[in-house]
């Protein structure tokens, strides 16, 4: 297929994959956002498919500090381990931490935000005060303290990052619920005797999704960066290398082996940039009100 002009995306509707393509068409992708989406898909496929074909991440080789070559695409590290193989496993690790932490944040945020926005009154005030506190608390420093105190294993890192990300999602959910709960169709559902749960889940939540999808994208990118920062400080899970942990290992060999630092960092940069560009585009398409206000 050709991507000569932006209308070709809508033109895909004639192919057998019409459901998928009409979904894509509604995204109204332009040059940068299409590139970002393709990049994200490529990274996700890479992280899912490639690692099993590569050797164990911790198997050591004879030649340490070998520069990138055909046998070692990204060179080897101080212990002679293949950097490419660690990079691929790192992709898996960084992405799963990012996605799972974002999911945790979203579940907590949506539930609490929905409660606050739907119930209003004292519940709302208390919940939003707590959210405000969590927003002021320096996430990075708290995560660092918690992981240093409780130990660094993957589950714990995911939960900590997720627990620190919820206020943003809660704030957005609450705002949507506050405005949507007064709409005619919600009032109609209430007058028709629908249960509160039905109103929340089948009337309000689906309509609150667009800004929440944007928030989720942003949560994933900030979770990946946060995990990288923590792992860089040596707080990552040492048995499962992530991109951040690789950068931690690279720090002491910057003089001898630049490749140990360049590739994992590029991985983070490209992933997070693609998420940000795509998220910005989603903000424009799904959420014109927020345009220019920043997410």
């Amino acid at each position, binding site marked *: 297929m050709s991507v000569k002009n932006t209308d070709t995306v809508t033109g895909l509707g004639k192919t057998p994959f019409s459901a998928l393509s009409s979904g894509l068409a509604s995204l109204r992708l332009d040059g940068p956002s299409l590139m970002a989406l393709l990049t994200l898909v490529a990274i996700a496929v890479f992280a899912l498919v490639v690692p099993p074909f590569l050797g164990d991440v911790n198997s050591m080789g004879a030649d340490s500090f070998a520069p990138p070559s055909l046998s070692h695409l990204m060179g080897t590290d101080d212990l002679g381990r293949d950097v490419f193989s660690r990079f691929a496993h790192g992709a898996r690790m960084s992405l799963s931490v990012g996605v799972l932490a974002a999911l945790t944040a979203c579940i907590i945020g949506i539930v609490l935000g929905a409660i606050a926005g739907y119930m209003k009154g004292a519940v709302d005030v208390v919940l939003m005060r707590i959210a405000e506190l969590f927003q*002021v*608390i*320096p996430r*990075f420093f708290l995560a*660092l303290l*918690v992981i240093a*105190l409780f130990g660094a294993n993957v589950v714990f890192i995911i939960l900590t990052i997720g627990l620190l990300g919820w206020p943003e999602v809660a704030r957005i959910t609450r705002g949507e619920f506050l405005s949507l709960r007064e709409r005619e169709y919600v009032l109609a559902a209430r007058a028709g005797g629908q249960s509160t749960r039905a109103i929340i889940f089948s009337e309000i939540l689906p309509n609150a999704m667009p800004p929440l999808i944007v928030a989720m994208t942003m949560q994933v990118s900030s979770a990946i960066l946060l995990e990288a920062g923590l792992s860089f*400080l040596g*707080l990552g899970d040492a048995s499962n290398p992530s991109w951040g942990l690789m950068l931690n290992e690279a720090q002491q060999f910057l003089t001898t082996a630049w490749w140990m630092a360049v590739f994992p960092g590029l991985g983070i940069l490209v992933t997070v940039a693609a998420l940000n560009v795509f998220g910005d585009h989603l903000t424009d398409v799904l959420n014109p009100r927020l345009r220019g206000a920043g997410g």
Partner: protein
Amino acid sequence: MSTDIVNSAPPAEEKGKLADRLRTIRFIGLKILSAIPMLIGVITVNFILVHIAPGDPITILVGETAPTEEQVQALYAKLGLDKPLYVQYWEYLFSVFRGDLGYSYVMQADVVDLIAARIPATAMLMLTSLIIFTVVGVGLAVLVARRPRSIFDSIGSFLAVIGYSVPAFWLAQIALVVFALNLRWFPTSGMTSSRHAYEGLAYVGDVLLHLFLPACVLGMRYLAINFRYARASMRDALSQDYITTARAKGLSEGRILLHAFRNGVLPIITVFGLNVTDILAGAVLTEIVFGWPGLGRLMYDAMYSRDYPLLMGMFVFVSIGIIITNLVIDIVYSIFDPRVGLK
């Protein structure tokens, strides 16, 4: 101020101004009051962490050091571990409000003193790069505000995406490899040369040379934030009615830009407040790469020696710093833009 278009009814003007001022004062008062629960919240989080962490508080606090029996007794008495939990909490809360952040058994010093000694270096790094790159970012945004989709706009937007997405510490590593190790333009580490003891102007030059790379690395993020928001709010300001009015009155384009600038750039102060925690985290990590002797380095050492009192003290200190920063920003904002108090 350019809000005069809004309240231009002459007889009510004096009264209006007084009311505005009262409203601003009330707003500031409320903001200061609302910062107090935040402070208590942060201290509470810290207290809870020590008590739910695995191991007993004494072992956590003394870490892997071998304290004397006297020190353990003193700590036991200070924490009041024999007293009920609410008394311990109460006493902890007050000790923090008195400025006591605890004692580092690893470093054998008060946490407050350890932190205070590192503030100048971190402040120098952050402020230098903050000032320079805010000017660059906002300047670039003003430059492109009138010409969307120009080459400068694309360059700025591209830099902004990078600045938002790049982990500061990785950018620091790359800058170090390229400019310090290979090109040898800049020193690799520290704040001053260890081989020469420079004095006077040469000393200042030496420090600036060491400052350059870390400040630029950190600055990428300021550039990104400022460009993004200044661009959006300048464009918004330029589409407002008062700009059309000004243009109809025949004001020069330069004057119009200045007019929009005053209203368009103000929101950026708030944006800085929202981003200050990320920026500080970036600064801390950048310091570690460049061996800059600030808070980041201190934190790194504290992590590796499992110096929990120091880590907790830094968490409380940084939180208080951020709460105060946001408070100051709110106050500055309300003085510049009296409409804020109305909300």
